[in-house]
C-alpha cells in the first residue's frame, strides 16, 4: 500500500474546485468518523461511511434548529442545478489529469477539459487539500489490480475522510465510466478476494498509522452490493450518467438499474388478478376479500375486517419464519391497537431492533443479503396486516440501506450493534427529536387570544398545544372530528384534562366554526413532493374551508415522512378501512337505517382512510428543518432524503 503515498505532482489548481461539493471541514468529519468506529452512535454524525455517495459530508444534526440557509449552502453540496451539473462534470476532470495512469482514460481527455472549463465557472474555491489527495488515491489505484475498488480502499487512509469520500467516489465513477466494463469482466473471484485482502491490509495499516479508521473500506463492498442497496444511489450519479452519456454509453448496466430503483416502486395494484393471486400464495395472513366493493377502488386491497385476527393469534407459536416481535406488531396493526404514523413507525422499528438482536447469520450466507431478505419478508407480512404508510416505507428504506452498507469487515456482533444503534438513532432523531423541534417552531406561531383548530388527533399538534399551554399562552382549541374513528374525542379528553378550553364539533360544522378560527394546525401522514399533504381523511376538507375563510393552515410533519412520490387525488393510492364501521353508528342505537342492508348488492360502504390536500390550501409546513411553504417540499426531499439514508 505504499503506492498510495506516491507523490503526485498533478496539482491542477482547477481541480480544486471539486471542493465545492465536499464539506469544508475535513478535520471535524474525520474525527466524526473515528467516533463512528469507536462509538457507534455519534451524536450528530451523518458523514457517510460509504464513499460512493457524496451528498452531505457533515450535515446538521437533525435535531438542530434548521440552519440559516446561507450556512447550509456549502454544507449541503447538491443544492440546485449548478451543483448537479458540476458534480456531473468533475469526474472527467479527474480523469483528465490522471489519464496517464489509465490508458483507456485518455480518450476522454477532451470532454474532460471542456467540462472542467464550464465547471470552473460555476464553482467556488473551497477545499484546497483535495486535489493532491485525489491524485494520491489515483496512484494507489494504479497499484492495485482493480482501480475502481482499490481507489476507495486506499483513499481513505490518508486523506481527511470527508473529502476523501467525495473525491474517491467521483473517481470511482469516472473510472467506471471509462473502464468499468472491461474491469468487470476482468475481475475474477480471486481478484476480488485479493481486493478484499488489500482492503483489510489497508485498514490494519491505517489503524497502525494513527488509529484512524477507514470507513471507506466498505466502499468496495458497497460497489459490489449496489444491487442490494437499492434506494441508495444518489442523484449525483444519476446526473453523471446522464450528462456524460456520451462517455458512458458502453457502461450503463448497474447505474441504469440503480436509477430504476431510485424511482419509487409502483405499488401493488390489487385489480391485477395474476399478481394478487401470487401475493396470496405467499401471504401469511389469510385475509378474506370483502365482497361488496366500490368500483373506483378495485386497485386497493379491501378485506373483511376482524375475521383473521383470532386465527393469527393461534398461530403465534408455530410460525417459524416470522420473528415474534414483528408478528406482534403486525397483529397490533391488524387490530388497530397501534395507529398514527409515528406510533406505527416506531413500533415497527423497535420490532426490527429485536430482529437484529436475535439475528445470527446462517452458515454460508452473507449477513447483508440474508438480513435484507429477512427484513423484506417481515415487511411483506406487515403489509398484509395493514398497508404501509409512507413514513414506514421511508424507515424501511433506511434500515435496508444501513444493512446494505454495513462494512463487510465488521464482525456479526459489531454489525448487529451498529444496526441497532442506527435504528435507535433514527427513532430518536428523526421521529422524537423532530417532533420536539416542530413543537419549538410551531409554538412561536401561537399568540394569546388565538383560536386554534385541529382535526383528528395529530400527535405533533397535541404536543404543540400542550407545550403552548405550559408556556401560559392563552388560547382556545377547536377540535374537529369525524366518523368513524372519532379520534378527536381522545384528543379532546387529553386537552381538557390539561386545562385547555376546547370546543368540539364534527367536520360538517366546519363552515360554522371557521369564522372564529385564527389558525388551523393539521397533522400529516406524509408530504409528497408536489406539496400535496397526504393525511387522515377530512384534512383536505378542513384545509379547503380554512383557505376559503382566509385562515392560515399550518401542517406539522416530520421530515422523515416526506416522500418524492407525487399524487394529485385521493383515489389512486389510498387505504380502505372497515366498511362496516360506516353502517354502524357507535353509541347511537336510534340510527339503524342500514341494518340488514350490508349485503345488498346495490349498497356499498366506502371507508377511506386518507386524502390528499392540494398544496394551494396550505400556508406553511412545519418540519424539523424549519417552516417552509409547500413549494419547498421537493427541496427538502431532495436535500435531506439522502441524508436520511446516510444518517
Amino acid at each position, binding site marked *: 500500500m505504499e503506492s498510495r503515498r506516491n507523490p503526485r505532482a498533478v496539482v491542477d489548481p482547477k481541480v480544486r474546485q471539486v471542493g465545492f461539493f465536499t464539506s469544508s471541514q475535513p478535520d471535524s468529519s474525520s474525527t466524526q468518523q473515528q467516533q463512528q468506529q469507536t462509538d457507534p452512535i455519534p451524536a450528530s454524525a451523518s458523514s457517510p461511511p460509504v464513499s460512493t455517495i457524496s451528498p452531505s459530508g457533515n450535515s446538521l444534526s437533525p435535531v438542530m434548529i434548521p440552519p440559516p440557509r446561507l450556512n447550509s449552502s456549502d454544507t449541503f453540496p447538491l443544492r440546485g442545478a449548478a451543483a448537479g451539473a458540476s458534480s456531473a462534470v468533475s469526474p472527467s476532470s479527474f480523469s483528465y489529469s490522471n489519464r496517464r495512469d489509465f490508458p483507456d482514460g485518455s480518450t476522454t481527455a477532451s470532454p474532460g477539459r471542456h467540462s472542467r472549463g464550464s465547471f470552473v465557472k460555476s464553482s467556488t474555491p473551497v477545499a484546497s487539500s483535495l486535489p493532491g489527495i485525489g491524485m494520491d488515491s489515483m496512484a494507489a489505484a494504479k497499484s492495485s489490480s482493480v482501480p475502481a475498488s482499490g481507489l476507495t480502499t486506499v483513499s481513505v487512509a490518508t486523506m481527511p475522510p470527508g473529502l476523501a469520500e467525495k473525491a474517491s467516489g467521483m473517481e470511482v465513477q469516472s473510472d467506471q465510466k471509462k473502464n468499468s466494463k472491461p474491469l468487470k469482466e476482468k475481475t475474477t473471484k480471486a481478484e476480488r478476494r485479493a481486493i478484499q485482502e488489500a482492503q483489510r491490509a489497508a485498514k490494519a495499516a491505517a489503524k497502525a498509522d494513527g488509529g484512524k479508521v477507514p470507513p471507506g473500506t466498505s466502499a468496495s463492498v458497497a460497489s459490489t452490493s449496489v444491487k442490494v442497496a437499492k434506494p441508495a444511489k444518489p442523484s449525483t450519479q444519476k446526473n453523471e450518467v446522464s450528462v456524460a452519456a456520451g462517455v458512458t454509453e458502453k457502461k450503463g448496466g448497474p447505474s441504469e438499474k440503480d436509477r430504476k430503483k431510485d424511482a419509487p416502486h409502483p405499488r401493488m395494484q390489487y385489480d391485477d388478478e395474476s399478481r394478487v393471486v401470487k401475493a396470496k400464495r405467499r401471504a401469511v395472513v389469510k385475509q378474506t376479500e370483502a365482497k361488496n366493493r366500490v*368500483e*373506483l377502488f378495485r386497485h386497493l386491497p379491501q378485506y373483511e375486517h376482524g375475521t383473521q385476527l383470532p386465527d393469527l393469534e393461534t398461530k403465534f407459536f408455530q410460525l417459524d419464519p416470522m420473528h415474534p416481535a414483528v408478528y406482534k406488531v403486525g397483529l397490533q396493526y391488524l387490530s388497530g391497537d397501534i395507529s398514527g404514523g409515528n406510533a406505527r413507525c416506531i413500533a415497527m422499528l423497535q420490532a426490527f431492533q429485536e430482529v437484529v438482536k436475535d439475528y445470527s447469520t446462517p452458515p454460508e450466507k452473507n449477513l447483508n443479503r440474508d438480513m435484507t431478505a429477512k427484513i423484506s419478508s417481515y415487511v411483506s407480512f406487515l403489509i398484509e396486516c395493514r398497508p404501509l404508510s409512507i413514513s414506514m416505507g421511508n424507515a424501511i428504506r433506511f434500515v435496508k440501506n444501513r444493512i446494505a452498507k454495513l462494512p463487510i469487515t465488521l464482525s456479526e456482533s459489531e454489525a448487529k450493534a451498529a444496526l441497532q444503534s442506527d435504528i435507535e438513532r433514527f427513532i430518536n432523531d428523526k421521529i422524537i427529536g423532530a417532533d420536539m423541534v416542530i413543537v419549538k417552531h410551531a409554538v412561536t406561531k401561537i399568540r394569546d387570544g388565538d383560536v386554534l383548530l385541529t382535526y383528528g388527533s395529530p400527535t405533533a399538534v397535541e404536543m404543540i398545544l400542550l407545550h403552548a399551554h405550559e408556556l401560559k399562552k392563552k388560547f382556545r382549541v377547536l377540535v374537529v*372530528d*369525524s*366518523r*368513524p374513528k372519532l379520534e378527536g*374525542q381522545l384528543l*379532546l*379528553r387529553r*386537552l*381538557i*384534562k*390539561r*386545562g*385547555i*378550553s*376546547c*370546543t*368540539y*364539533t*364534527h*367536520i*360538517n*360544522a*366546519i*363552515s*360554522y*366554526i371557521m*369564522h372564529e378560527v385564527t389558525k388551523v394546525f393539521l397533522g400529516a401522514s406524509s408530504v409528497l413532493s408536489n406539496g400535496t399533504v397526504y393525511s387522515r*381523511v*377530512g384534512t*383536505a*376538507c378542513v384545509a*379547503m*374551508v380554512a383557505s*376559503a375563510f382566509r385562515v392560515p393552515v399550518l401542517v406539522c410533519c416530520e421530515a422523515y415522512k416526506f416522500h418524492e412520490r407525487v399524487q394529485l*387525488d*385521493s*383515489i389512486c393510492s*389510498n387505504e380502505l378501512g372497515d366498511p362496516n364501521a*360506516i*353502517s354502524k*353508528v357507535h*353509541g*347511537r342505537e336510534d*340510527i339503524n*337505517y*342500514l341494518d340488514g*342492508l350490508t349485503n*345488498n348488492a*346495490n*349498497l*356499498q*360502504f*366506502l*371507508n*377511506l382512510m386518507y*386524502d*390528499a390536500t*392540494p398544496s394551494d390550501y396550505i400556508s406553511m409546513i412545519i418540519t424539523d428543518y424549519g417552516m417552509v411553504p409547500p413549494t419547498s417540499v421537493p427541496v427538502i426531499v431532495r436535500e435531506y432524503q439522502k441524508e436520511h439514508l446516510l444518517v
Partner: protein
Amino acid sequence: MPDVQSMVAEFVNKLRKRKIEGSQATAKCTVELLRSVISHQRVPHANQAAALIDAVKAVGQQLVAANPVELAVGNVVRRVLHIIREEDLSLTTAAMAGLDLLDASDDDDIDNCKGIGYPAMSAAVVAAAARSTLRPPSLQTLLEGTPESATVPYTSSSGADSESKTADKSSLTRKLKHDVIEGVNQLIHEISGCHEQIAEQAIEHIHQNEVILTLGSSRTVLEFLCAAKEKKRSFRVFVAEGAPRYQGHLLAKELVARGLQTTVITDSAVFAMISRVNMVIIGAHAVMANGGVIGPVGVNMAALAAKKHAVPFVVLAGSHKLCPLYPHNPEVLLNELRSPSELLDFGEFSDCLDFGAGSGSLQVVNPTFDYVPPNLVSLFITDTGGHNPSYMYRLIADYYSADDLVM
C-alpha cells in the same frame, strides 16, 4: 273560532318543539292551518280582503316566531297573503271593468273631462297593477310607459270599490273568500306536487354512467334520482352520511330500496371523492333571495369542493322554499344548534367536566344548517324549471307581493 285558535296554538307548539321536520311538511301544515283560519274568519262587509290579510298575518306572525329558522312557514304565509291580494285584485278588476263599461256608456262628458274622475282613476290604477302582476310585460305596455301611479296601494281601490259597489256585496264577499280558499288549495296542491314537477326534469340533467354526490336526506332529491332511474338511466350515487344526524343513511336506505347503485361515504371523504363525481345534487332547506342556499350542515364544504373541481352544484328546491329575504350572517342567524348529545356521550365526558382547578371548559357545537353563498351554486331546479342563482330574486317577485316581505 275557538277551535281555530287551539289549532294555531297546537301548531305553534309543534313548531317550537321542532316536532315537524322538513320544509315541505311544515309548509303543508302551515297552508292547511291558514286555510282553516281563512275559512273560519268572519269577513266584514266592508274591506273584507284587508280583514283576511290581517287575520292571516296575525297567525303568520305567531307561526314565524315559533320557529324563525323554518323559513318555509314565513314563505307560505306570504304566499297566502299574496293569494288574497291577488284574488281581491282580480275581483276588483272584474268589477271595475263592469263599472267602466257603465261609465263609458252613461256619461261620456265626465269621461271626457277625466283625469280627476275617481272611478276612471281607480280603474287605471287597477289595470296597471293587474298588468304588472298578472301578465308578463308585453312590448306594448313597455312602450306605453305605465304610469308610476300603479304603485298606489290598493287598499284604497278596494275601499273605493266596496264603497261604490254596495249592491252585490254579499255575493262578492262570498266570492272573495271562496276564491282565496280555491287559491290556497291550489297552493297545497302545488306544494305536495313539487316533487313530481322537479323530478320530471331529472332526465334532462342526468346522463348515463353519471356519478352523483348528495348529502342530507331530501325527499326531492330522492324523487329526482328515482325519476332518472325509472327512465332507464343507470348511474351511481354517493351519499355522504351527514353526521351527526345520519340522514344520509336514511336516504341511502331508500335509494337502495328503489334499486339505485348507492355508496355511502363518510362526510370527511367528500373532498376526496368529489374529483370523481360528475354532479352534486342537494335538496335545499331554503333558498334566499340572493340565490344563497340554506341546506343541511356540511353542504358548504361540499359546495366549496365542487367549486374547486368545477363540478356542477345543483340545488333542488320547491317553490315553497323560495324565501324573499336577503340573508345577513345566515350561518349564525338562520341556524340552529342541536343537542351536544348527538356528538358526545355525556357519560363519557362527565369526568372531564368538573371545571375544577386546572381543567378546561368544554363546548360542543352542533349546528343544523349550512349556508352556501350564491357563487357556489351552479343551478337551481325548481318546479318551474331551472334557474340561475342570480335570477332568484325575480322568481320571488312572482310569488310574493312586496307588501308582505316584512310581516
